[in-house]
């Protein structure tokens, strides 16, 4: 019977990051992945012959630069191609473009509103400062505010000092970002509807809230924190799809000595005398280890793999209350030709960037209204990229793949998810998009619709929540996933968590995996 220092449940990007850091520190690590390939929700699959898709997550920006550096990911095959623009087609046939190029962006905004063009730089500077203020928090194990231990007290004091040191006005601004709705927050800066809507859309991603609900402004910042080669707010696309991000991390982990086993589903955490001592696989095999680290989400980890009876009641109650409520879906299209947008006809630079279907805040709210009462949005918010424009290997020559992030598609849809529902969602997406790009219906060769229920079934994310638990204020920082257990440890001795259900969570970020490894290794 092999024995390891640590066995990691789940080969998602966080599990792999954690494994890589532990292996680099000389630990004997085994990663167990249920599926036939690693990556979790960051995978590339050839869904239709010749057409390769980032089936679930599809862009890179939140991946922590220190992880890229520490693990030397470019050497292991990570290559990120920048997305240079976001185009929002409008209902009146016009469009709003946001470009990485500063001057081009300013000219385009001024076309819609001179005032907004003026405000944009100041807004960018403010968010930049806020992102820098938050950044140190991403790499830390959150202190426990209700503990009186010296370590926690000094952790809280250090936090207060950090916020004080930001300078006048910064903490109130942070308070606003944490507590406001993204729509209200943006109302203070801009007047162009499409600009406000497109920006506030990043505040609703993965949540079951509308852009007018308080608490969405923070997610805006969370998404703004994307760093690429040191540039804030740049999104990118991984060459070869998001699976190549996972592959690069896995290669780094293996190079450091970690063992990764696919097709190895864990059924239980092995608990002997009140301590996690390994795992039991579906096939009955036992694998012993000094530590068990779960990359699965909190509900799966504790309710399924551990079991309530091994945990304190209060903790179980808290895990039950932790909210998932997946609200987003993915539609992947294989295209015979490029979409031809009415607002920007032909093949242009805009097809190399993102296309956002978010013409107004009211549009997003109406999409949310459907979902609130258990329906899929008839006119959903969509974030679209065409990876084959940046990386031609994703599709056969002359053909394209289109990746569409769709919201809202509630996990708890009335009557449950069925094949008809899935197709209805696909139809709503294609119909909506065809209003802006009339040739789309003709261009579609194949269509894959991934509902929250599919995400749960295939990747194992509870209720299909892409962040392993909603990223709302009451589930963040020292409250993620459970107060007093936000430091990657769990009430079960020997069991750690490293998934996005822990601080800071969400996105292909890797910070949870890294922080967990540091907590295990006893780093300060």
């Amino acid at each position, binding site marked *: 019977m092999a024995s390891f220092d640590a066995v990691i449940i789940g080969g998602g990007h966080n599990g792999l990051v954690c494994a890589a850091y532990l292996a680099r520190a000389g630990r004997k690590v085994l990663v167990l992945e249920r599926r036939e390939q690693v990556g979790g929700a960051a995978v590339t699959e050839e869904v239709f012959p010749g057409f390769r898709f980032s089936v679930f997550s599809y862009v890179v920006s939140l991946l922590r630069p220190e992880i890229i550096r520490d693990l030397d990911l470019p050497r292991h095959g990570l290559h990120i191609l920048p997305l240079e623009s976001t185009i929002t087609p409008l209902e009146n046939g016009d469009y709003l473009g946001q470009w990485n190029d500063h001057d081009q962006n300013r000219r385009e905004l001024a076309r819609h509103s001179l005032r907004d063009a003026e405000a944009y730089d100041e807004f960018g500077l403010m968010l930049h400062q806020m992102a820098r203020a938050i950044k140190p928090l991403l790499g830390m194990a959150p202190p426990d505010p209700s503990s009186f231990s010296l370590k926690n007290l000094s952790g809280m004091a250090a936090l207060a000092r950090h916020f004080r040191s930001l300078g006048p006005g910064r903490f109130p601004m942070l*308070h606003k970002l944490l507590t406001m709705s993204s729509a209200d927050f943006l109302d203070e800066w801009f007047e162009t509807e499409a600009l406000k809507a497109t920006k506030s859309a990043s505040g609703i991603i993965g949540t079951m809230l509308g852009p007018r*609900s308080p*608490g969405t402004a923070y997610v805006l910042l969370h998404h703004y924190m994307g760093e690429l080669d040191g540039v804030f707010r740049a999104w990118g696309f991984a060459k070869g799809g998001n699976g190549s991000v996972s592959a690069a991390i896995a290669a780094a982990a293996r190079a450091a000595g970690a063992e990764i086993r696919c097709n190895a589903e864990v059924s239980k955490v092995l608990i002997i005398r009140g301590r996690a001592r390994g795992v039991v696989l579906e096939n009955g095999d036992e694998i012993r280890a000094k530590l068990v680290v779960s990359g699965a989400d909190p509900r799966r980890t504790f309710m399924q793999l551990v079991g309530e009876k091994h945990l304190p009641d209060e903790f179980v109650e808290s895990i039950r209350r932790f909210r998932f409520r997946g609200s987003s879906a993915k539609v992947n299209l294989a295209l015979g030709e490029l979409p031809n947008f009415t607002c920007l006809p032909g093949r242009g630079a805009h097809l190399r960037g993102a296309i956002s279907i978010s013409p107004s805040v009211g549009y997003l*709210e109406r999409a949310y209204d459907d979902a609130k009462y258990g329906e899929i949005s008839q006119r959903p918010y969509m974030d679209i990229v065409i990876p084959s424009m940046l990386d031609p290997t994703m599709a056969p020559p002359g053909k394209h793949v289109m990746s569409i992030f769709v919201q809202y598609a509630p996990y708890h849809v009335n009557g449950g998810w069925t094949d008809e529902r899935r197709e209805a969602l696909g139809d709503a997406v294609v119909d909506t998009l065809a209003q802006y790009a009339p040739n789309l219906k003709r261009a579609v060769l194949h269509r894959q619709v991934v509902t929250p229920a599919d995400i749960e079934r295939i990747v194992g994310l509870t209720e299909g929540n892409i962040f392993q638990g909603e990223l709302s204020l*009451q589930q963040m920082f020292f409250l993620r996933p459970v107060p007093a257990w936000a430091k990657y440890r769990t009430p079960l001795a020997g069991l750690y968590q490293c998934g996005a259900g822990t601080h800071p969570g969400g996105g292909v970020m890797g910070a949870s995996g890294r922080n967990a490894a540091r907590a295990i290794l006893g780093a300060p």
Partner: protein
Amino acid sequence: MTRTVVIGGGADALVAAQLLAGAGREVMVIEGENASREEGWVPPEVLRALRLEGLTLEWPDPWISVPLPAGGRLELWRDMARSIESIRRVSPQDAARWPAFCKRMARLARFLEALYAAPPPDPLSAGFALRARRLGRQGLEDLLRVLPTPVAELLDDWFENDALKGALGAAGVLHLLQGPRSGGTAFRLLHHHVGCPPGVFRPPRSNLPELLRRLPRVELQHAEVRRVAVRGGAVAGVVLQDGRELDAAMVVSSADAHRSLLELVEPGWLDPDLIRALRHVRRRGVAARLRIQLDRSPGFVTLALAPSLDYLERAYDDAKHGRVSRQPYVEARCDAQHRVEVHVQYAPYGVDCSKLGDTVLAMLSEHWGDAAPHEGELLSPQDLEQSEGWPQGQPHHAELSLDQALWMRPLPELARYRTPIHGLWLCGAGMHPGAGITGAAGFNCAQEILRR
């Protein structure tokens, strides 16, 4: 001239005036026509400081009742046992959970209560941290989790019955342009719980303004203030609507910050950033008021029509898209003379709600048996702006949401009642704690003035 002028005749203005006069200042209160009646809990600190006796706090009992779909009513009383009995009829499980829920909420409300009787704390100070820790582990965790949560989620965690959740959920959105599924609304439930007995989530009515009026020491003048005269960055006096000028070294305004600083003060004295921030203080009125005289008792003291959280949310959906709720949230209170005062939400400011009165009458008439209305009058947010002086019809002056509460109320730069204009202070409902906590903002403002 060292006179202090206090603008406005509400409880906050009168409390501030009395405390300043008690400290030896010469104080004149200038009260406009629209001195509004206020309701709300009064912190004991205020009474102690003014040596006031004879304050009555009145809660209707039951404080809320909700018609049930199968007939009968769910009634929540000050007496916990009676509430439990009433809840048991609709859900034994909810009845069993009621005492624990009330206990947990009461503990959090007590924490807010302590914060409300003082100027806003510094959130980054050790003192504030220690105070929060005194809640204990469970209390602190509850606080951190409950404040930003949608009230609907909080209630879904505890209860199953729609009528109960609807009645409680309404407390989370009163006078707020948010629905129960919006973040931060659980904080509002707690806010309305401050000062109430466990299990009561509506502010009481008090006779504080009448008591204050009877106190000597302060000169009351009926007049409208046209502007505050500023010379060299400092207050010089006030100019009244009739042209009279009164010298004053200090002006304490209970009008909202927007009016006090952008309308009463001539432009040019303030930093453009502050002006911009003031314009962004959200103060959207969302409720209309209907006053009805009935010929006999309607058979209820209070009645709330909010059958479920979804009902409230749909009422909000209309408002969110700029319409009057087709099926509004309705809360009626009836007094001994069969006068019914009805809170109707959502009626967004600036939207025509002339048909709303009929809608509400039709909704209520199903529940008051044979009683017949003699007369009814619907006051839209625009009317309330005129008659009560509430900006945009918003009685809280600045919507009480987490980003406009405590040290953020109404703006971080103004949260300590002082303005950049020397001698000009703010003490109205838009200041901490404001929003239905009667007299506390005036009390805190006077404390800050006298602390210098």
